[in-house]
C-alpha cells in the first residue's frame, strides 16, 4: 500500500435518537463540517466509500440514502457493508491504486429506527442458533461469562472496567452516554444477559462519522504535519458461536500483529494511544489482552470512552479512527491504534496503526 494520510475527521454528537434527521441530513452534518474544517470542496473529492448496514437502516442498498449528502452523484463511489474501519481498507486501496488522489469515507448508523435486538438475531445462522432467540446481548453475555471463567475473574471486574470507561466518556463531548457512573451504580443497573448489566454493554446509538483520506502528494501540499494510516490488518473468524472458545484470545491477536508488521511497529510500547470497539466491558479487557497490550503501563486506552460511550452502528470503528486521529493531530501522542469490528462477539476485526509525521 502506498502512503495514505488522513486530512480530517468529524463525527456527530451521538445519541439515543436523532428523530430530527433522516439519513441524508445525518450524513450531511458530518460531511459539511469536514469540508469546512479541511477547506476541501465537493468538486475536489475524487471518490467516496460509505459504510452502512441495510438491516439497521431498514433499507436495502442503504447507501442510496446518503448519495447526495456525500456528493457521490456523478462520481465513482462504492460501499463496504461492514464497520467503517473496514471501509478504510477499500478507501486506501482506491488511493493506492493511483486512480484517485483522495477519498471521502462516511459511516452512519441509527439504532433508534429499527428493532436492534431482532436485527441482531437475524445475524445468527438460521438453522441452529437463530431459532434459540439469541441476540447480540445474549452472545455478549456468553462471551463475558466464558472470559471470567477462563481468567478466574469476578464479575465485579466488569463493573470496574465499565466505570473506567464511564470516567472517560463523561468527558467526551460526542458521547451518547454522558454520566460518570460508579462501579456500584453500574452493578445496580438492569441485568441484561448474565453476567452483563446494562451499563456494562455498549449502548445502541444514532450517529455518523466522516473522514477524508488522501495520497502523499496531496498531504505534502498542507503545511501542517500529517497523520498517516501506516498499517492495517483485518480478518474474519469462524461464524458459529460454538466453533471457538469465546473466552480465549480471538482473531484480533492475528489481526493486530498484521497491522504492527505492516506499520513497522517493533515493540508494543511504541503505541501511545489505542481506541477499540468494545461492545461490552468484558471486551474492553479482552481486546487489550488479544493485542498484547495488557502490560503497557503508559498506554492511553480508550480515552474517548470507546464504544461503551457510543455505538452508532457501522460508524463505530470509524469513530475510533477519528478519535485517535484527533489526539495525534493535537500532539497528544505520536503512534496510535484504532480498532473496529463486525459481528457481535468479535468475529471480524480490523486494526489500523496511525502515526503523526
Amino acid at each position: 500500500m502506498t502512503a495514505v494520510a488522513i486530512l480530517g475527521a468529524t463525527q456527530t454528537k451521538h445519541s439515543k435518537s436523532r428523530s430530527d434527521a433522516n439519513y441524508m441530513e445525518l450524513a450531511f452534518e458530518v460531511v459539511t463540517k469536514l469540508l469546512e474544517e479541511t477547506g476541501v470542496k465537493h468538486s475536489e473529492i475524487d471518490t467516496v466509500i460509505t459504510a452502512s448496514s441495510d438491516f439497521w437502516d431498514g433499507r436495502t442498498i442503504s447507501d442510496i440514502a446518503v448519495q447526495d449528502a456525500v456528493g457521490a452523484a456523478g462520481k465513482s463511489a462504492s460501499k463496504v457493508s461492514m464497520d467503517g474501519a473496514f471501509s478504510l481498507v477499500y478507501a486506501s486501496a482506491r488511493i493506492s491504486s493511483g486512480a484517485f488522489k483522495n477519498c471521502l469515507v462516511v459511516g452512519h448508523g441509527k439504532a433508534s429506527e429499527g428493532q436492534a435486538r431482532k436485527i441482531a438475531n437475524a445475524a445468527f445462522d438460521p438453522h441452529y442458533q437463530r431459532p434459540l432467540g439469541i441476540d447480540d446481548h445474549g452472545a455478549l453475555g456468553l462471551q463475558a461469562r466464558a472470559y471470567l471463567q477462563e481468567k478466574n475473574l469476578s464479575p465485579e471486574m466488569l463493573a470496574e472496567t465499565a466505570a473506567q470507561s464511564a470516567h472517560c466518556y463523561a468527558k467526551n463531548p460526542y458521547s451518547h452516554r454522558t454520566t460518570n457512573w460508579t462501579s456500584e451504580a453500574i452493578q445496580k443497573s438492569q441485568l441484561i444477559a448474565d453476567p452483563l448489566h446494562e451499563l456494562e454493554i455498549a449502548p445502541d446509538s444514532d450517529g455518523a462519522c466522516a473522514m477524508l483520506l488522501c495520497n502523499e502528494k496531496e498531504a505534502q501540499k498542507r503545511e501542517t504535519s500529517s497523520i498517516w494510516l501506516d498499517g492495517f490488518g483485518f480478518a474474519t473468524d469462524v461464524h458459529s458461536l460454538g466453533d471457538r472458545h469465546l473466552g480465549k484470545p480471538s482473531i484480533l491477536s492475528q489481526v493486530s500483529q498484521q497491522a504492527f508488521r505492516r506499520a513497522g511497529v517493533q515493540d508494543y510500547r511504541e503505541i501511545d494511544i489505542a481506541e477499540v470497539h468494545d461492545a461490552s466491558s468484558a471486551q474492553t479487557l479482552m481486546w487489550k489482552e488479544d493485542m498484547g497490550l495488557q502490560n503497557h503501563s503508559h498506554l492511553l486506552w480508550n480515552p474517548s470512552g470507546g464504544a461503551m460511550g457510543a455505538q452508532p452502528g457501522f460508524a463505530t470503528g470509524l469513530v475510533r479512527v477519528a478519535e485517535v486521529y484527533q489526539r495525534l493531530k493535537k500532539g497528544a501522542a505520536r503512534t496510535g491504534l484504532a480498532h473496529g469490528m463486525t459481528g457481535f462477539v468479535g468475529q471480524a476485526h480490523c486494526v489500523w496503526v496511525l502515526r503523526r509525521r
Partner: protein
Amino acid sequence: MNHHAVHLKPELTYQYAAGRYGSIFLAGLKEKKICASHCTKCKRTLVPPRIACTSCFGKMDKIVEVPPTATLLAFTLVSFPFLDPFTGVKRPIPYCYGMVQFEGTDNNFQYFLSEKNTSKLKLGMKMIAVFKEARNGRLDDILYFSLHNRS
C-alpha cells in the same frame, strides 16, 4: 434425499425519521401546500424538499411553496402482484404512477395518477395534484395527479 429448509422471516418494524425537510413537506400537505427546497447558490428548486442540493451538494437554504400543477414526464401501469413491504399484504393492482414536474421546480416527483388507461396519457400533459378532504400530514394526503385542463 429430503432437503430440509428452515423458514424464517424476520418480522421487523422500522420508524423512519422524515427529517427536518421532510417534516416541513408533510406538514405542508396537511394545508394543501406543496413545499420545495431551494438552493440560492444554484437556483435549484426541488420536490420533495431535502437538505442536499443535487447540483452543488451544498445546503438547500430556503423552503418555497410551488403550485400543485405539474407536467407529466413518464408513467407506467403496474399490473403484477407483489408483497408490499409497508402493509405486509399484496399491493392492490393495477395502479398507475408517473413522474411529474411541478411548475417552477427542477426535478421530478413520483406519484400515483388517477388515469389507468395509459393510451390516454402522453408525456408533456399538464397534471394537477388532487388532495384528500381529510388530511393527516402524510404523503397520501395527495390522492393522485389528474389531467388538468385537457391538453
